[in-house]
């Protein structure tokens, strides 16, 4: 009953094509942002901010990047972590070598470096598709990690390639507490998510989806297929690169190339599969699920097992996590390939009619 467009008449194309055409959605988004920007920093403690909310936001951004490439433009990629690594090490080097460089500039330039690497490894997509392309991006994954470890220049000649991120400082203000870092990451992620939403609802996004759905038809109506694919690689890698920089600067503090391994790429791929392929919201839902789920499992698996009289061996919960993740991914691929975002959409469609059946 509450979720209905009844009475909301659009009298211009501008009103019809605004970012959230339904009033209820607009209220929902504004409320979420208010909670995220004002309520959360006030009530959440350092542990929640530093160990849960910041990684959630960082992974959301990386998942958003992968979703642009895989979900919207239809190019399967297994190199997400590599592009994050380029972003992190890029930002580190800009910050290290150019004293006048503001930190946000370093993040952005780290993203730009990742975009160029993305374009380079996106070149095979002009000739190959699907699984074969995934293998080409896998090459990016191994090559980037190898290059960052092998050439010490990238990590300023530190032992084993570990880098310690510089402190984040903007106009003399140091982001040292979890609260301030959280707000910085939140602001960056919000802006980039809005930009992504704008891109996917305008010509750029339509071109990506057209290439994904039917590349020959896209070419025939005048969409430049090659440029569209490479742009998807560039934008996607930029997002992943910025996510990588935030991963190093706002979340971990110290990172090494091996931290950006294939496992991380897979984790982000799982996020978009569970959250929803081809959905901005899905990137956030998937990241929330994958970040929060192990924590909930850790907290509740043992009490639950004790309650029903089973003695869980220690370390069992991490195995349980893998088992349940595996099961869920198969479940989503088989039953709801469009993920949590699709479930949410179905719920909204049901809510339009509720409590009536038709």
């Amino acid at each position, binding site marked *: 009953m509450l979720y209905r467009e009844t009475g909301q008449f659009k009298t211009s194309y501008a009103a019809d094509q605004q970012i959230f055409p339904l009033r209820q959605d607009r209220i929902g988004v504004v409320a979420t942002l208010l909670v995220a920007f004002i309520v959360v920093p006030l009530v959440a403690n350092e542990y929640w901010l530093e160990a849960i909310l910041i990684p959630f936001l960082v992974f959301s951004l990386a998942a958003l990047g992968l979703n642009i490439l895989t979900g919207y433009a239809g190019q399967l990629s297994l190199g997400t972590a590599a592009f994050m690594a380029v972003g992190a090490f890029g930002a580190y080097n800009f910050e290290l070598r150019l004293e006048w460089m503001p930190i946000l500039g370093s993040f952005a330039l780290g993203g730009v470096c990742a975009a160029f690497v993305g374009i380079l490894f996106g070149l095979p997509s002009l000739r190959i598709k699907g699984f074969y392309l995934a293998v080409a991006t896998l090459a990016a994954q191994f090559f980037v990690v190898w290059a960052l470890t092998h050439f010490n220049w990238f990590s300023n000649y530190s032992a084993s390639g570990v880098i310690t991120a510089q402190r984040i400082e903007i106009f003399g203000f140091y982001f040292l507490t979890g609260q301030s870092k959280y707000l910085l990451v939140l602001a960056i992620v919000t802006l980039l998510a809005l930009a992504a939403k704008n891109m996917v609802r305008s010509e750029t996004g339509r071109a990506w989806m057209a290439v994904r759905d039917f590349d020959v038809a896209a070419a025939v109506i005048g969409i430049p297929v090659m440029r569209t694919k490479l742009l998807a690689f560039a934008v996607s890698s930029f997002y992943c690169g910025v996510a990588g920089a935030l991963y190093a600067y706002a979340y971990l503090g110290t990172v090494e190339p091996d931290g950006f391994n294939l496992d991380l790429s897979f984790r982000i791929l799982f996020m978009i599969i569970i959250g929803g392929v*081809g959905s901005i919201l899905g990137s956030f839902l998937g990241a929330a699920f994958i970040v929060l789920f192990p924590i909930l499992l850790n907290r509740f698996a043992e009490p639950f097992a004790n309650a029903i009289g089973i003695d869980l061996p220690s370390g069992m919960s991490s195995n349980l996590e893998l088992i349940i993740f595996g099961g869920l991914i198969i479940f989503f691929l088989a039953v709801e390939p469009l993920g949590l975002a699709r479930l949410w959409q179905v719920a909204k469609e049901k809510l339009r009619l509720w409590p009536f059946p038709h």
Partner: protein
Amino acid sequence: MEQVRNIGEPILVVENVSLAFGGVKALQDVSFDVCEHEVRAIIGPNGAGKSSMLNVVNGVYHPQQGHVTFKGVRRQDMNSHEAASMGIARTFQNIALFRGMTVLDNIMTGRALKMKTNFLQQALWWGPARRDEMQNRHKVEEVIDFLEIQHIRKTPVGRLPYGLQKRVELARALAAEPEVLLLDEPMAGMNLEEKQDMCRYVLDVNDQFGTTIVLIEHDMGVVMDISDRVVVLDYGQKIADGTPDVVRADKKVIDAYLGVTH
């Protein structure tokens, strides 16, 4: 609204085109022309090379020999993007819509070449990108009105019945404001009413926008009714060319369609 149709000079000339895939000769030395504002049909039995011919014209296939002249530009090889930017649009035999997108978004992709803003402006949305989007939306709405598909504007194309999908595909091609429209079996698989509707739309496009139409169709009733001139292909070769009456009476055409005893 009825305008006087004045058929002009040849806008599209196909000269001696040959196309082979390995040993299979899809087209052999085919020549014909299409005049401005006319409705030109290509017919022939299955496998005669009709769709290959359209694919050559809009640059999906590259012929080994021969030339295609469009609007005075003569070339052997055309790529799809060039063809589209010179004003050739088409529909496909098997529906080639973007299934993950709504009807509106599908038709908006037809405006791809008219969009002036780049992805950074679009990421900001406000300003030029928004204006661009609104202007093109306006054009798209005209096409939507013309083809009477207002009610399904926001429906994902995958959910539509076949006949409507065909109409959306026509809408996407029309949104590009083409000078030549290539239609690959626009009436295939339709019932009588849908065929009549589609014929009316094709003729209206030709009348009101002056669009030149090249059409492949198997329904002889439709072809003979709506086209000005007909090319007949059989085994990759042109066997007849002329007005419907001439083609209908041609001995070779009758043999190709009905078979001949040797």
